[in-house]
């Protein structure tokens, strides 16, 4: 979100009183005096469509291709149902908690004054955008973030649990963290930079996914007798849609059709390209075979990792971020599976969690590097900013892990996390949804 780095935000002094300061200066108060820009509005409307496209069908296909054929529909269903549910929760509570003022609690959480868009009029603006446009753009972020977690629990989760978890998680994890970083909360006050959601989206989803996978337990047959991805072509298709949609995600986060948006798109693209090729090269040299699933996993790692930094680095920084994303996430995957032995089935933590955090921390180091690099906001030092970023990471990770665990323990107390073992054996498509993926 451009707002975290906008000039007005820069004025916020990084100091002990940052939290209080944030309350007062309100780094994100929409500039009400401004007029709506048709060009900016056109771009953010487009970006909204692109980000919805990331989840529906992008992410759904990306994940759907990786599971057994008997579970493909259940994965698509989970993604679609989460998207719908998240939209309604966002309307009822999420947007207001994230983007309205929380009064005395504002450093921690917004208020309920904008629930159901109360008080938003036809001429309300956020920056140069009509507020419904900003609402919708943000809604698509609130959709994809919980949908990312699907990768942790496919092929064995209870469907009801997915819905319940999503609703609670959105209110208790996503909305607060979103408020902290983009809604004028304590991290905004500290000056943490997260352009398009390295912390807000990827770190929250990634770490929560790890917790979910751990509490849920592994799939039958993990780790040695699993079926290979049933349709890597679907996965590639989904990855391509994620890539295209990410142009909306990152360049849309400029909230304007300007040079910042252009540069954000550029570095996003370069990071994705570099990470894809790097992941391919690693596989090629280690296993002798560069795989499509590997290449596109690299793509997503590169995209997740550049996300927080898309407003702060130039193309050279993007090359480094992309290469680092592939190397680190590749190791991350192996560590989670082989060392931690957690069945985070589609590697949400290793790709999104690790990527989002990595990008958040690399940002200050690479902000000034090479042509077109904007550098850090005036008055920030590399290591000062690194400290702030690290505080952001720690705060967001702890909150996500603890609250996600509490939500799941609560659900487990009253219901079940897993589908019945029989349903798992038969495949969730037929057992839970009464459908079969392919009748050829």
């Amino acid at each position: 979100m451009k707002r975290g780095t906008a000039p007005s935000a820069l004025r916020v002094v990084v100091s002990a009183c940052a939290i209080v300061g944030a309350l007062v200066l309100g780094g994100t108060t929409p500039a009400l005096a401004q007029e709506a820009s048709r060009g900016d509005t056109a771009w953010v409307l487009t970006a909204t469509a692109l980000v919805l496209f990331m989840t529906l069908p992008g992410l759904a296909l990306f994940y759907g291709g990786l599971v057994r054929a008997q579970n493909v529909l259940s994965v698509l269903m989970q993604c679609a149902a989460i998207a719908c549910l998240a939209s309604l929760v966002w309307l009822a509570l999420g947007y207001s908690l994230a983007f309205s003022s929380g009064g005395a609690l504002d450093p921690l959480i917004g208020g309920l004054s904008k629930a159901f868009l109360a008080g938003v009029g036809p001429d309300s603006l956020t920056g140069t955008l009509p507020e419904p446009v900003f609402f919708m753009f943000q809604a698509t972020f609130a959709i994809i973030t919980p949908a990312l977690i699907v990768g942790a629990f496919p092929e064995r989760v209870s469907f009801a649990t997915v819905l319940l978890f999503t609703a609670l998680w959105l209110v208790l994890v996503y909305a607060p963290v979103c408020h902290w970083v983009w809604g004028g909360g304590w991290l905004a006050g500290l000056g943490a930079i997260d352009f398009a959601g390295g912390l807000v989206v990827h770190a929250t989803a990634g770490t929560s996914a790890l917790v979910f996978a751990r509490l849920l337990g592994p799939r039958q047959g993990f780790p040695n007798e699993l079926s290979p991805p049933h349709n890597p072509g679907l996965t590639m298709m989904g990855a391509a849609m994620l890539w295209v949609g990410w142009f909306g995600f990152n360049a849309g986060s400029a909230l304007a059709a300007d040079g910042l948006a252009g540069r954000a798109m550029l570095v996003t693209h370069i990071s994705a390209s570099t990470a894809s090729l790097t992941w391919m090269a690693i596989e090629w040299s280690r296993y002798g075979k560069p795989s499509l699933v590997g290449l596109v996993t690299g793509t997503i790692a590169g995209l997740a990792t550049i996300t927080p930094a898309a407003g702060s680095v130039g193309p050279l920084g993007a090359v480094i971020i992309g290469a680092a994303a592939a190397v680190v996430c590749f190791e991350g995957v192996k560590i989670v599976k082989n060392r931690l032995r957690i069945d985070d089935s589609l590697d949400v933590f290793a790709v999104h969690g690790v990527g989002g955090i990595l990008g958040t921390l690399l940002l200050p180091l690479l902000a000034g590097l090479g042509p077109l690099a904007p550098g850090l906001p005036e008055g920030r030092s590399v290591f000062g900013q690194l400290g702030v970023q690290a505080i952001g990471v720690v705060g967001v990770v702890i909150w996500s892990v603890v609250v996600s665990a509490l939500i799941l323990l609560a659900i487990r107390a009253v219901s079940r996390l897993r589908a019945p073992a029989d349903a798992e054996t038969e495949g969730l498509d037929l057992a839970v949804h009464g459908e079969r993926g392919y009748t050829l």
Partner: protein
Amino acid sequence: MKYVIAIIKPHRLEPVREALSRLGIEGMTVTEVKGFGRQRGHKEIYRGAEYTVNFLPKVKIEIALDAALLEQAIDSIVSAANTGQIGDGKIFVLDLEDALRIRTSERGTSAL
């Protein structure tokens, strides 16, 4: 009459079919199957995790034929399917008691 079941490598199907057709055997029924045997399956690696695929794709050919043609047919199959490598497959011979052509209800060898 005999009922011959041959398990062969998929890409040898065409040559086998041609070889049999040179003997005048045009009719056969083919199924895609998974073979387990001495030839080992392969491993696939996705994101660093190994997936073992124990079976190998094979093709099963079923041919009902006159006992008189049996040895010739076996020879044809062997020479067309043989690549000299492990996993080339097997031929099984069963006795066939009766055969019938649905269209005409002809029975016996004239039904083949």
